[in-house]
């Protein structure tokens, strides 16, 4: 089934023949590997994640949450701060739910520190509840029970021209956890 002349080959020839046979199998595999390597390199370049065109202007800026006139009553208010950014071929709006505590004029992130779901206010129990894994937080945002390791994060805020503003994204700030 092999080369016709193979019967007349002695042992030395068999050795070189084995080398040739191996080469004939390895060369095609090499070509295939080369093509795949080229394509995979191109794929890695092609699929590299997009970075937002966020310049200094879009990060760490003071975004309005609510005018002071709205901060009446005692119930926490749900608000959303959002930043619109260019991402890839379109523009995306990055939204972040926040909670305004009107009396203290403090702003908490509504993102549960456990797995990132948005907590909701339950007026009857006067507490925040995370719908995903049943973490409970009191009306000041401190953890009362559940798998969350800490209370809701407080965001840096300030009042400017009668409007409560929050710094977002607050990535450079250390998390200021609400304590008890």
């Amino acid at each position, binding site marked *: 089934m092999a080369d016709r002349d193979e019967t007349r080959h002695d042992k030395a020839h068999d050795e070189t023949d084995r080398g040739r046979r191996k080469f*004939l199998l390895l*060369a095609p595999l090499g070509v295939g590997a080369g093509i795949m390597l080229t394509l995979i390199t191109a794929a890695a370049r092609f699929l590299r994640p997009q970075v937002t065109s966020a310049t200094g202007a879009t990060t760490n800026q003071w975004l*309005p949450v609510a005018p002071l006139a709205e901060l009446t009553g005692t119930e926490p208010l749900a608000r959303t701060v959002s930043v619109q950014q260019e991402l890839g071929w379109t523009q995306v709006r990055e939204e972040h739910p926040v909670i305004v505590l009107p009396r203290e004029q403090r702003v908490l992130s509504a993102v549960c520190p456990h797995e990132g779901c948005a907590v909701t206010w339950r007026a009857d129990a006067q507490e925040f509840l995370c719908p995903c894994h049943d973490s409970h937080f009191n009306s000041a945002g401190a953890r009362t029970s559940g798998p969350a390791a800490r209370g809701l994060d407080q965001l840096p805020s300030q009042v400017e021209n009668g409007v409560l503003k929050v710094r977002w994204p607050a990535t450079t700030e250390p998390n200021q956890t609400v304590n008890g």
Partner: protein
Amino acid sequence: MSATDNTQPPANTQPPARAFACWTTFDELVRRVVAEPERGARAWLRTTAGLVVLLITLQLFTGLLLACYYVPAADDAHTTVAFIEKAVGGGAWLRALHADGSVLLPCVLVLHLLQQLWRGAHRRRPVAWLGSVALLALVFAAGGTGYTLAWDARAYYTTHIAEGLVGGLPLIGGSARLWLLGGPVISTLTLSRFFALHALVLPFLILTTIVARLFIFRDQNTHDASAATPDEAQSAQTTNARPPLTTSSLSPHPSSLSFWLRAQLARNAVVVGIVFIVLALYAAKYPAPFGPSADSVPADYLPRPGAQFLWLFELLKHAAGASASFIGLVLPGLIFALLALAPWLDRRAQAATAWRRRAPVLLVGLLSLLVLSLTALALFDDAHDPRAHDQLARQTAAEEAFRRAPFIPQRARTSDMSGTATQTTNTTNANTQNVNSNMNNAPPAAYTQNCAKCHGAHGEGVRPNPKLIGIAEQPHRTVADIIAILNDPSAYGLQKPMTSFANKLTDDEKRQLAEWIEGLK
């Protein structure tokens, strides 16, 4: 003599190689794909199988990558393709590979069929032949549906031609057209449909055909054919028949492939390597064509299909009325049917003279020659018609300018606000403000009564009719031009359903309309 081949001592072999051969069907795969032993030039001619494998793999790979950014919706498709072309690393190269591969694949498949015909393989292995013919038809269908996806001027025309061809079919034309488009007009539904066909249905069918051809259906005498050389036939007898192909992967040897198969595999690899390098360099130099958006096709745009469809394009130039559907759909269908039936039509030729045996290959060769000359004629026509030549040159220049211009992201949608949102800050709000200013700037009554039906309440366009937003930036669209278009659209190359409003509007209304349209951004 087979002893040297099949009974190499396992001790001499490297464990990885042995494991590879033991635990994969690599040998099996090679036996199925790589042709049986032959010598010299003939062996090189039979490397078309390797090329088919290369090109189909390439199409699947590049297609999967393109699908990572592409959005099959009318509002987004052109933007996402522009993004791939201009903003993503290596995007233009991958898209060019995909486009060039789609032209090369049918050519290689025709060569593959031709050499099968020449050897009379279609008679000996009718199932394999049927698989190859089906593959060719599916590849053409994939190429055809692919044009729509870029949603550029070429997509606009290709889709309209597909619509016309299908709609012109006798009896079933009307409903076939509706089923193809997903509705009464070409819309975002059509695009989604074509995308599903191009990216899911056809690749699935192509892969199924290949797997079925290689591993499920077997021709009765494949086994004999692969043992065609006297040596092999003899060795098969002396070793009391080779083991069935399906159990060869259990052999304890590094690879049971014969010397001839290895040599043929190497020949395939050489050809595949060369073609890949040429294709890669070509794709790096010439990007895939990408015209202006289908929403704003210039009136003087000349659409040209890819090279594998030029012959059909040339034929359709001469096809009047209902014969277009015959030439565009029925004729290719008949050709494929004839090819598919070749093993049975050609049965009697088995015992005939050498001349009779070669008749089918001559017929198909002649057909290929006809296709090639029609393609050449189409190219010749464009090169020697000064009007077409100049326009095509202008289009190329416009495309190059578009490529050089930076990518502009699409404006954000403003409707997807979450329920709790009360306070929103736009950091890049220029686009949103523009939308608002359009909405506040109410159209004149003459617009709402006469134009809004086709061009949208605020000039946003109702497919397939063009939008008017941004029209001021296009050439020959000043206020004076728009008034002139209202008086005589044909002078600007505009066709029905755009009609003249010369007698339907007063001069004041026309000016008011034109100024309002000019202000649309």
